């Protein structure tokens, strides 16, 4: 079993990126406020800080977190990923489930355990070896006992460098002591230079690059074709055609993706249409109920207010009457006091007068004596 946890996505849409680790969502979890994160990232964030959603800071707790809707998982597994052994040379690209099967069963560049010794080796070397020994398996098993046929030391026949047997074929591709003849001009070149030479070999027969778009020119030597391409209408239009094709491919892919999204949504709709409808209905009836109650309360309030203000008016009138009555009573009392004061003053005057006359008569009597 080859373990591979991390896949590299060919083109990961921003909506499927975890806002915390900025990588593709792993075991996605969704909060009550509707934001989705990797499980580990979200729990890590909640452990460190106060329990708030990292996006909108709404308070959340562990019970408010649920696995993300299935549609998110489906969208993630439908996206194209690179084969994890891309660095070893595998060019395979496809949806995740296809690639994981490819890695387990067929990828030539997957690192697997060497069947002969305890090292790892690329699967293609094991395949090459079993082809070599096909029909003579006994020889293969016999060799196992003394030396691993994949990791035994061998020498390059051209330059004499010593290396494990598995690396020999790669080395032969690069060894500058091995030369081969160009199939077009018969010149001798090393493996490294051969590719570059064949591209520019003047003896090579090539076809016009406008051929797929309708050019009728027959295959000819490289020089002739390159001068033809200067004037060929189809060749000059090729970049435009290619750009169109890329655009069409991209749109088709996007269309496919949208189709899948629609399918998933339609599926969800057909699964739970009743419950959602009844939910809405329930909410509506609840709303109506609340509205009726509110009207009842407000009419009651209005009536109470009316009654209250009427009683206030009556009370105010009563108070005003009472105040008036008190005022007249006070006036009466004031008059009486005034009257009494006047009376007292006149009484005092009368008493003073007889005493004065008495004193006068006394003085008269003194003179007489």
């Amino acid at each position, binding site marked *: 079993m080859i373990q591979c946890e991390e896949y590299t996505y060919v083109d990961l849409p921003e909506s499927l990126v975890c*806002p*915390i*680790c*900025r*990588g593709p969502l792993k075991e996605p979890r969704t909060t009550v406020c509707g934001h989705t994160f990797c499980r580990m*990232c979200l729990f*890590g964030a909640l452990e*460190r800080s106060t329990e708030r959603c*990292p*996006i909108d800071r709404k308070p959340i707790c562990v019970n408010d977190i649920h696995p993300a809707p299935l549609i998110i998982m489906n969208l993630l597994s439908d996206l194209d990923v690179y084969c994890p052994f891309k660095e070893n040379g595998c060019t395979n690209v496809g949806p995740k489930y296809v690639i994981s099967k490819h890695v387990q069963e067929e990828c030539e560049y997957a690192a697997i355990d060497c069947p002969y010794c305890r090292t790892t080796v690329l699967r293609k070397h094991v395949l090459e070896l079993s082809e070599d020994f096909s029909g003579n398996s006994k020889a293969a098993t016999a060799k196992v006992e003394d030396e691993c046929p994949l990791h035994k030391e061998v020498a390059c026949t051209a330059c004499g460098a010593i290396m494990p047997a598995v690396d020999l074929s790669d080395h032969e591709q690069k060894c500058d002591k091995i030369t081969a003849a160009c199939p077009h001009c018969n010149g001798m070149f090393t493996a490294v230079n051969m590719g570059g030479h064949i591209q520019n070999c003047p003896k090579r027969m090539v076809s016009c690059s406008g051929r797929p778009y309708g050019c009728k020119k027959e295959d000819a030597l490289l020089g002739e074709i390159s001068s033809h391409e200067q004037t060929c209408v189809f060749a000059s239009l090729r970049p435009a055609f290619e750009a169109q094709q890329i655009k069409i491919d991209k749109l088709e892919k996007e269309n496919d993706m949208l189709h899948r999204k629609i399918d998933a949504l339609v599926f969800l709709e057909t699964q739970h249409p009743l419950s959602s409808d009844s939910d809405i209905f329930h909410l509506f009836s609840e709303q109506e109920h609340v509205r009726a109650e509110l009207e009842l309360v407000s009419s009651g309030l209005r009536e109470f207010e009316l009654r209250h203000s009427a009683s206030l008016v009556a009370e105010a009138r009563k108070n005003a009457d009472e105040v008036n009555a008190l005022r007249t009573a006070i006036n009466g009392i004031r008059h009486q006091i005034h009257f009494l004061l006047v009376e007292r003053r006149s009484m005092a005057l009368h008493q003073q007068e007889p005493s004065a006359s008495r004193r006068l008569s006394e003085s008269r009597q003194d003179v007489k004596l």
Partner: protein
Amino acid sequence: MSFPKRIIKEAERIVSDPVPGIIAKPHEDNLRFFDVIIDGPEGSPFEGGHFKLELFLPEEYPMMAPKVRFLTKVYHPNIDKVGRICLDVLKNNWSPALQIRTVLLSIQSLLESPNPDDPLANDVAEAWKEDSSKAIATAKEWTNKYAK
């Protein structure tokens, strides 16, 4: 040295798609260290200045906020003498969904709108409250002196 993917991605993006008025360059030997230059916002007393900062991503990043410090002297009520910054998202309002670029944008907007009611440099905040036009003149003077 290996770095979390997020740090590598953020470093790549901030170099290839920089925020206007902000340059952030990661150290070649350590992607957790950034040399930052923030241009003073237009219409603020810091206009025309280029302020150097250092930014460090701690081991716990993004669960903990990056550490940011001004290296250029700034006359600002929320930035003290040694360049420490009083900004909520760098302290208790940090969220792991924030990024280097959002933090730097917040610092840029702090330059644009100083907040003397939540001061770090008390003397500057007092001056700002007492006579804001004089404080703004001082900030301009410092910008010309230290941030050119």
